């Protein structure tokens, strides 16, 4: 049986809409859990948004003496310093916050000096320093970018379809963003600029998926003028189902390669993207379309008579 596409039955009649209530409940629970999670245990902010310094060091053949490193740094009065090994015993990572009022760049120079003096042979394979001013700006920019993305998507769908569709799409977007955020909380991933990029990409992908379903919905609405909206949604989702599955699987396959072989620094990004693709697909079916049902959408024949402008009152 090759190609596989022949195996996928072409006229599935899954009653998607009838399960919408159940899934809506699940989604709402997940969203609430995420909102609670933001306060407790809270987001694990990376230095992009919190400010501070992360140093990765390597001591060559000898294992890192973590105690010595800690000892060297206590005299510098840095407050909370974390020193851990990662991967190999000769690799360590040092994290600390820049004390208020001192120059972040100057502090890291002193820290490196102190560590080199204590350990002797040491190479710093990575240095990331973000000053408090910069991290504040990045935080504001990140939130701004996410909101701008959602806003522009609303406008685009409104422009290409109609307002109800736009609202459905935007609710789906918030749903996807919130749950992806929930995953970040759940896995305690370090929230960095990369993850903002992942969230923006999820917005793009989720919309992409939603648009495909909407497109079919719009077309079917013209074709079957008497069919109730509920059945139209079921029909459109079923008709686009094989595309949804194949595109989704392709993306998942490609990204899983990235998550497994892409190395430590790309892993959080790929995991969030993988999740986002699943959730984006789910939301196109179970969030965006039922929302339209909730709001109702105008039929084409109704659209034919636009609302007459009200004469201005004297």
């Amino acid at each position, binding site marked *: 049986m090759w190609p596989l596409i022949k195996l996928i039955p072409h006229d599935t009649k899954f009653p998607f809409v009838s399960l919408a209530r159940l899934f809506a409940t699940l989604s709402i629970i997940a969203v609430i859990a995420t909102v609670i999670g933001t306060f407790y245990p809270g987001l694990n902010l990376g230095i992009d948004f919190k400010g501070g310094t992360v140093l990765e060091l390597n001591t060559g053949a000898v294992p890192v003496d973590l105690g010595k490193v800690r000892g060297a740094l206590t005299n510098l009065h840095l407050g909370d310093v974390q020193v851990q090994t990662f991967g190999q015993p000769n690799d360590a990572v040092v994290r600390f916050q820049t004390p208020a009022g001192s120059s972040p760049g100057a502090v890291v120079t002193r820290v490196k000096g102190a560590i080199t003096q204590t350990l002797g042979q040491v190479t710093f394979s990575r240095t990331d320093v973000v000053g408090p001013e910069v991290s504040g700006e990045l935080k504001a920019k990140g939130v701004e970018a996410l909101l701008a993305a959602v806003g522009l998507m609303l406008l685009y769908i409104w422009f290409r379809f109609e307002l109800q569709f736009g609202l459905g799409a935007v609710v789906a977007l918030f749903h996807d963003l919130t749950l992806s955020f929930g995953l970040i909380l759940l896995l305690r991933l370090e929230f960095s600029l990369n993850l903002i990029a992942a969230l923006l990409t999820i917005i793009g992908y989720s919309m992409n998926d939603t648009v*495909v379903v909407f497109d079919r919905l719009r077309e079917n609405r013209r074709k079957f003028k008497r069919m109730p909206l509920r059945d139209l949604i079921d029909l459109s989702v079923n008709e686009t189902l094989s595309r949804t599955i*194949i595109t989704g699987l392709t993306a998942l396959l490609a990204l899983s390669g990235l998550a497994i*072989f892409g190395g430590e620094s790309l892993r959080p990004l790929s995991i969030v993207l993988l999740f986002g693709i699943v959730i984006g697909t789910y939301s196109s079916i179970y969030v965006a379309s039922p929302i339209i049902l909730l709001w109702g959408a105008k039929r084409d024949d109704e659209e034919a008579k636009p609302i007459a402008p009200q004469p201005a009152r004297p």
Partner: protein
Amino acid sequence: MLTLSRWKVFLVIASAVFGVLFTLPNLLPQSVVDSLPAFMPHDRLNLGLDLQGGSYLLEEVDTGALRKERLTNLTEDVRTKLRTEQIAFTELGLVGDQIMARITNPAQVDAAFKALSNSLGGRLRSGARDVTVERRPDQHIAIAFVPQASDAAAEDAVTTSIETIRRRIDALGAKEPVITRQGTSRIVIEAPGESDPEKLKAIIGKTAKLTFQMVDTTVPPDDLAAGRIPAEDEVLQSDTPGAPPMIVKRRSVVTGEMLTKASAGHDPNTNSPDVDFSFNGIGTQRFAEVTSQNVGKPFAIVLDKKYIEAPRINSAIVGGSGQITGGFTEESAHDLALLLNSGALPAPLNAIEQHTVGAELGADAVRAGQISVMIGAALIFAFIILAYGLFGGFAAIALIVNGLMIVGAMSLSHATLTLPGIAGLVLTLAVAVDANVLIYERMRDEVRGGRPAMSAADAGFRRALTTIIDANATTVVAAVIMFNLGAGPVKGFALTLLIGVFTSLFTAILITQVLIGWWFRAFRPKTLPIS
């Protein structure tokens, strides 16, 4: 739509050739690329600092220090002006951002006001004065900079700093650093390669303001301890820890700008490292004047408000050259000479962001990236061929051309490939398949609707188009926003996505169309392999 017009075939072949040609330099060893004939492209992918190793520094001009220094200088100007006009005054000093002075004789307030308003400060680009002079009650005069003046000063400071930093980094021999302005008061320095970031930062961040100031030996130690020092003096710390502070005249005799050349050398007597320097005309003259008037007194050599040493003037120095011997090491003498030669920064710089990746770590990232792109692509190919058979194979060919076009376009435009950019590349390839999936599913629908193979294939392309465009527009919106978010690596991700959307639209639609068209012409099939 399946009619193979000449321009379609031409476009497809041209894009494939473009992709191969511009991707090629990335696959060949450097020596082969260098020996390619001139008409062939030579540009490789520009790897981000996270992939090739290097340092990203974001430095901010310390506008606070800049303002303070400008106010201090202005205060000294007021003092000098009033003295030359022989106007007696008291209480000269800073009150917030204003300089206040009380004119002792009420009859001279007008004269003081006039003298100060006509002489102080400079001019803004608009031509207006950058200093305001105002009369205040009780014979006071208030002097302040206009608000625009500090912005203008910060901007000038950034411009000068960029030039100075470039000279310093060039002298250090770092590999092709990119130095750019960001906003009004920030400078981005991107230095690829293995240069030591701390050394780089030290060289960049040092103000290197050199002054020669006379030591005030008249102040008794008790007054110094109590902080009672004359208004025209200042207290300086030594740059060697533990040495006592010193009182010097605020007015500097000679400054670093009057140096023509500095070099690291050795003291002929002790053979310890020193820095030799020579003055320009004005410097030589001023130094000769001051040293001849002050034989037997000490003067301080001051770098960034810390004195290095304070030698006694044994005789007038008229030759216009000298040495600084202040307990240098070979390296520190060398660094100081470098700093003096490249000039002082107008204000201190603070490193507020730094990202350094070792070359080895970068190379690891490149390897991991290559592996995951190859595995990702292989999985996509396998899956799409499994799913759609021959048509899947066509999509895979389109995908290969797509990949080549993305890499080629990025090499051509010198766009930077970052580590997240590699993720963007993988994702782009996956999403590019979506266009083909949409087209093929559409064809299946059309066949089901009773159309014959050829017409169904044609309708598939035609009717999937709006959906494809709508779906990709959303990615473009997301990518454009990401690109504006700033920060290098994320920008790289956005750029890859963006380039990818356009090449995907082109290849997924046009290339598969031409391939399917050829297939129809060659085999005259009655059914589609996907229905």
